């Protein structure tokens, strides 16, 4: 009886452990999709509303939860107060400060850094070009992340079961 319970425990532990990894893997495409939604919001509100960046940040923060929402909320707060730092510097600092919270890869962060360098700094046409380019790049990264995630989650699911069974065999 004890050996059966032990085997079940080992199986649950390995499947659960790999399940955690699967959850973490799913975060990256989710964050990329959140960023994509923000970029689309910026595109439409800039184009049709001509809202200033602090107001756009507040809108983006209100429409997003989690780490992306927190980023925009902090940015909105920083832009509202008088600061010696320019927007690209604030943007870069916030991205780095929240690095622990992101599940994004270096390539993803690079796209976001480049967005921050140009955001708000030019006329409407150039902003639309910048946002379109960022949208395309984020979309590619999100597609790639989703495909990778699907592949790896299947692999990790299998690995959870296999490693559990292997450990049970070794134990018995």
């Amino acid at each position, binding site marked *: 009886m004890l050996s059966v319970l032990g085997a079940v425990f080992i199986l649950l532990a390995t499947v659960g452990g790999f399940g955690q990894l699967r959850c973490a893997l799913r975060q990256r495409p989710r964050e990329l999709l959140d960023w994509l939604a923000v970029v689309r919001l910026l595109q439409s509100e*800039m184009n049709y509303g*001509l*809202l*200033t*960046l*602090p107001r756009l940040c507040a809108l983006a923060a209100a429409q997003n939860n989690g780490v992306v929402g927190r980023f925009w909320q902090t940015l909105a707060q920083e*832009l509202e107060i*008088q600061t*010696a730092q*320019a*927007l690209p510097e604030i943007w870069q600092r916030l991205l780095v400060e929240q690095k622990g919270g992101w599940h994004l890869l270096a390539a993803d962060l690079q796209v976001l850094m480049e967005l921050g360098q140009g*955001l*708000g*700094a*030019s*006329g*409407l046409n*150039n*902003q639309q070009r910048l946002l379109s380019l960022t949208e395309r790049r984020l979309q590619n990264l999100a597609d790639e992340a989703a495909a990778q995630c699907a592949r790896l989650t299947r692999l990790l699911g299998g690995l959870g079961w296999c490693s559990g069974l292997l450990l049970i065999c070794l134990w018995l």
Partner: protein
Amino acid sequence: MNTAVKLSVQSGSQFAELKALLAPPLSAALQTLPGQVWQSMQEIRLRVGQPVRLCLAEGERTLPLRWDADLQERQLMLFLHNSVYAYEEQLRQGFVTLPGGHRVGLVGEAWFVEGRLGGFKHIASLNIRLARAVPGVAKPFLPHIVQQGRVLRTLLAAPPGVGKTTLLRDLVRSLAEGEAGLPPLNIGLADERMEIAAAVDGVPQLAVGSRCDVISACGKAQAVMILLRSMGPQLVVTDEIGSEEDCQALAAALNAGVSVLASAHGGSRAELLARPWLGDLLREGFFERLLLLKRIGGRLLPAAVYDKQGRALPC
């Protein structure tokens, strides 16, 4: 003339809004100044490579702060709330209106899009013009403008910097609030350069009265026609008229039975008569009053008053 109000009267909150938008080094340099300097300050001039200069009512003052290109860019982005795209049209015209009604003029290297001025790059100079709401400044002028129970078609004229816009704004406020011995008037204000009402997000930043409809950043002639057609004003107000279209729009107001209050650059009647379209309006007796302004010791006073035939009246 004892009732003349000094132009330096200023509410503290207007400065608070401006101070919140200044780059930290400039803000720190201005904080060292005594309060009376702020009260008499008219302009802050920021030129790349030059020290910051203040234009005060009593003269110029130089601050010990050398303004560089980085500071200029930082300052501009603070004024624009890091949103160049949202101010593109204003930038093309060479100015930005700030909360509180202050106005920033900017020039640099011009760039063109399809033959049209697209704006300026490498902004070399910023001129922050401090807006002044001086309630009561219009009081000595009202008896010249309001007669026989109506507002006469009036032109205010003075050289730049004397206070035409300040006076015009307070006249609008007084007439809209019924402080001129007349019932309150519905006023249509064509504020092309956004100096009179200084609307930000459509909301006037300076007191123009509660019965004033404002069209901002629109050509005067077009704005006057829209006001006449859509808002049914009893008085149309606009500043710095001069072009043929402006004069035609004012004539349209006359045809609609609406009175007109306008301002123009000019130091004397002869100078105004020499101007092509405006001179014609004056000769034809369109304006029932021409008020020339002067400023003495910070007080705005009538320098000369003329009737529609060009006869000088007592001030």
